[in-house]
């Protein structure tokens, strides 16, 4: 996909000689430039979904972009809860998106499973 980065601007003077930084997002290779945040680098690469909601799995991305809402949190070099909108991009960064988590305690067990469990206990 072509880059969404703004390279020409009618008013702002944009420095086109910024250093290129390489990083991975979910093990896929991407590049950003010096001065990018993780969020801006991914946005320039056309990536809007930064993580999935832990319970429902619905897609989430940048919401406030000022470090307030924690919607853009990603896993950076194994550290969880890092805000993509505030964290400057570094060379060789390993960024992973948050994924849907299992919820074994949400549904619970059925009455039959409960009975079976205790019946199994009685016979021992």
């Amino acid at each position: 996909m072509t880059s969404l980065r703004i390279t020409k601007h009618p008013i702002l003077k944009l420095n086109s000689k910024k250093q290129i930084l390489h990083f991975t997002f979910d093990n896929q290779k991407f590049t950003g430039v010096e001065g990018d945040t993780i969020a801006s680098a991914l946005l320039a690469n056309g990536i809007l979904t930064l993580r999935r909601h832990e319970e429902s799995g619905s897609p989430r991305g940048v919401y406030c972009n000022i470090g307030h809402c924690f919607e853009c949190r990603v896993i950076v070099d194994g550290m969880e809860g890092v805000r993509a909108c505030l964290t400057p991009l570094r060379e060789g960064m390993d960024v992973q998106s948050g994924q849907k988590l299992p919820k074994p305690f949400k549904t619970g067990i059925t009455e039959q499973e409960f009975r079976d469990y205790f019946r199994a206990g009685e016979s021992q």
Partner: protein
Amino acid sequence: MERKELIICRCEEVSLTDISSTIEKYQCSSREVKLRTRAGMGYCGGRVCRSLVDKAIAEMKGDQPSDEIPLTYRPPVRPISFRTLGGN
């Protein structure tokens, strides 16, 4: 937008419908709504939705936001890692 789709608390994915049905069912304070729906108990610490929950309750019950027991601010004001406090 559909009320059902209108998310109030993004961290815990609580919609306006969830909040309004809880208020209708239990006639409760904003703190009780928080405890029943988990709105405002997510990762961001209620920074995004606290005032929205208060406002929704004020509108539906017709009284002032944060009536008997208000939604409080508690430390840490921002989630921070132990790493930030020192150590690795």
